[in-house]
């Protein structure tokens, strides 16, 4: 039997993964650092038509598109004359497991079933766990979920405890860990021990599963309004939600629709810190995932991440924790929709953005998630208070992640703050330089990088000089 200590298992990472996802990523490699993304997506994944069929079989998708008429009225009260776009919401909480993640899980679990894997494993502290567990029940597979839940005091984040409970409700085995990136080690050991399929969030299956969300919302807006949405706001963490939705919109031909990422601003909190872990009120949809996954997608649990958000992102906005709690309350109180806070990150950003848009424009918030004990503003704010975080009314601009949560005094205080995408793109190139150590790339690589960060080959060449990387066109 192979050694099970940390170093030995990590050293076997690639062979374990190859078996557990059944993808030979090597065959898509090109140039010195690049790979053929589109070829990987089309050869490994499934077509939009196949995915619709897979999702129909397990009741995934076809969620309602709701117009938020009262929130739009509120926007127009606050906006300058003639401004205030109509806000629509894709109610993804209506999926079987209560979030859009059912779309992502549906394809992975189908693929595992079709290829004879006895079960599926996923490393996730989010809604994805319940999605995989629920889809596994429907396909008759076993399911193991590996979560990061507790700090060293044994205190569990309420939202993650709820997600763990939901996985167990579907008969999954839930491995609950304390804080730390070595979760990956436990995950690898489980894959090796069971021979189950790695239902990674970041395979072509997972991303292709979200394409139906973009295609569907585009179709729904066209059917109702006879036109395409002007903007779609997407809660951004690992990048799969944004990538899949944007690809779906493009496949539907909505190439003028602006793709906007929104994350909760958790600047200053370290994601692997035992101390910081329970000082945040959002466990996903935040900058702690959103920024690192945009600036280096290949930090994921598969060699080539199919979620590549910078390829599609037109703008990146952040909102404060207090603002998202405010909008979660507003959604319940004005629209009669009680939904989980993390999914409302994009709603908070859309609320601010709509005020700058014309009244005949349409902005779509592309997801909601279920709410319940733990996954609720009351639960999160009480937990924050127990952990020494100050909760108060005031100007959210003054909120400091890990120290305070500032609930706006007035809806006019809700703002969406732009992240400088050029800086993000530069960070991407820095990460490329640091993690590959490459000093020279070829024309294929240049073409790849140009698509990755949406800059012309000339601009990329110029930016690469800063990291002493030269382009050698042979």
């Amino acid at each position, binding site marked *: 039997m192979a050694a099970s200590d*940390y170093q030995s298992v990590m050293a076997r990472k690639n062979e374990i993964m190859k078996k557990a996802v059944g993808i030979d990523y090597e065959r898509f490699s090109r140039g010195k650092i690049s790979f053929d993304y589109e070829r990987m997506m089309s050869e490994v994944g499934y077509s939009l038509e196949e995915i619709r069929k897979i999702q129909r079989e397990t009741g995934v998708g076809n969620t309602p598109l709701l117009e938020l008429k*009262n929130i739009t009225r*509120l926007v127009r*009260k606050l906006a300058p*004359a003639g401004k205030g776009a109509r806000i629509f919401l894709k109610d993804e909480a209506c999926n079987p497991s209560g979030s859009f993640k059912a779309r992502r899980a549906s394809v992975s679990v189908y693929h595992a079933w079709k290829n004879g894997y006895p*079960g599926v494993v996923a490393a996730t502290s989010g809604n994805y766990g319940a999605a995989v567990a629920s889809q596994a029940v429907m396909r008759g597979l*076993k*399911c*193991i979920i590996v979560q990061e*839940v*507790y700090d*060293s005091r044994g205190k*569990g984040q*309420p939202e993650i*405890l*709820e997600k763990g*409970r939901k996985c*167990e409700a579907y*008969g*999954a*085995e*839930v*491995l*609950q*860990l*304390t*804080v*730390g*990136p*070595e979760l990956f*080690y*436990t995950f690898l050991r489980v894959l090796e*021990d*069971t021979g189950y399929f790695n239902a990674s969030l970041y395979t072509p299956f997972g991303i292709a599963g979200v394409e139906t969300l973009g295609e569907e919302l585009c179709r729904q807006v066209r059917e109702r309004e006879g036109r395409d949405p002007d903007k779609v706001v997407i809660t951004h963490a690992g990048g799969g939600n944004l990538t899949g939705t944007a690809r779906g919109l493009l496949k539907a031909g909505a190439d003028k629709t602006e793709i906007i990422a929104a994350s909760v601003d958790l600047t200053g909190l*370290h994601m*692997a*810190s*035992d*101390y910081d872990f329970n000082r945040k009120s959002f466990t996903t949809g935040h900058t702690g995932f959103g920024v690192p996954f945009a600036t280096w997608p290949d930090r994921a649990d598969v060699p080539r991440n199919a979620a590549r958000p910078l390829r599609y992102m037109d703008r990146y906005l952040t909102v404060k924790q207090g603002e998202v*709690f*405010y909008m979660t*309350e*507003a959604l*319940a*109180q*004005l629209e009669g929709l009680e939904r989980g806070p993390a999914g409302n990150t994009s709603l908070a950003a859309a609320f601010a953005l709509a005020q700058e848009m014309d009244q005949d424009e349409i902005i779509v918030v592309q997801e909601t998630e279920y709410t319940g*004990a*733990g996954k*609720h503003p*009351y*639960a999160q*704010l*009480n*937990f924050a208070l127990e952990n020494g975080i100050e*909760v*108060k*009314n005031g100007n959210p601009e003054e909120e400091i992640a890990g120290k305070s949560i500032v*609930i706006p005094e*007035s*809806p006019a205080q809700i703002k969406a703050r732009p992240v400088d995408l050029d800086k993000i793109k530069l960070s991407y190139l820095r990460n490329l330089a640091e993690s590959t150590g490459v000093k020279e790339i070829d024309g294929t690589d240049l073409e790849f990088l140009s698509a990755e960060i949406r800059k012309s080959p000339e601009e990329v060449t110029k930016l690469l000089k800063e990291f002493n990387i030269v382009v050698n066109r042979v």
Partner: protein
Amino acid sequence: MTEKIKAGTWVQIHQVILPAGERAPQVPDDTQEVPLELRVKGFLLDNGVVGEEVEIETYTGRRLSGILEDPHPSYEHKFGRPVHELLKIGRELRRILREKEV
């Protein structure tokens, strides 16, 4: 705690995966100083005692061993006390919407 927990009981066990000081090099100092711990639930295979090593069968049928930590694990997360700072929002927003359209 020497209460004997009967075989077949749904329990939670605890394992130390990586001891303090042997964590991955990239973790921050505060995390480096604490162990990586695992908790998992399952059916107890033989009678056991809290604080002692036991073996469980998880819901998927895997056998795992660890220290019997909680003989009656329960879901304690909740909604909690209504939060004053949020309670005001619904009334305030309704008031704004009632105001005459400009």
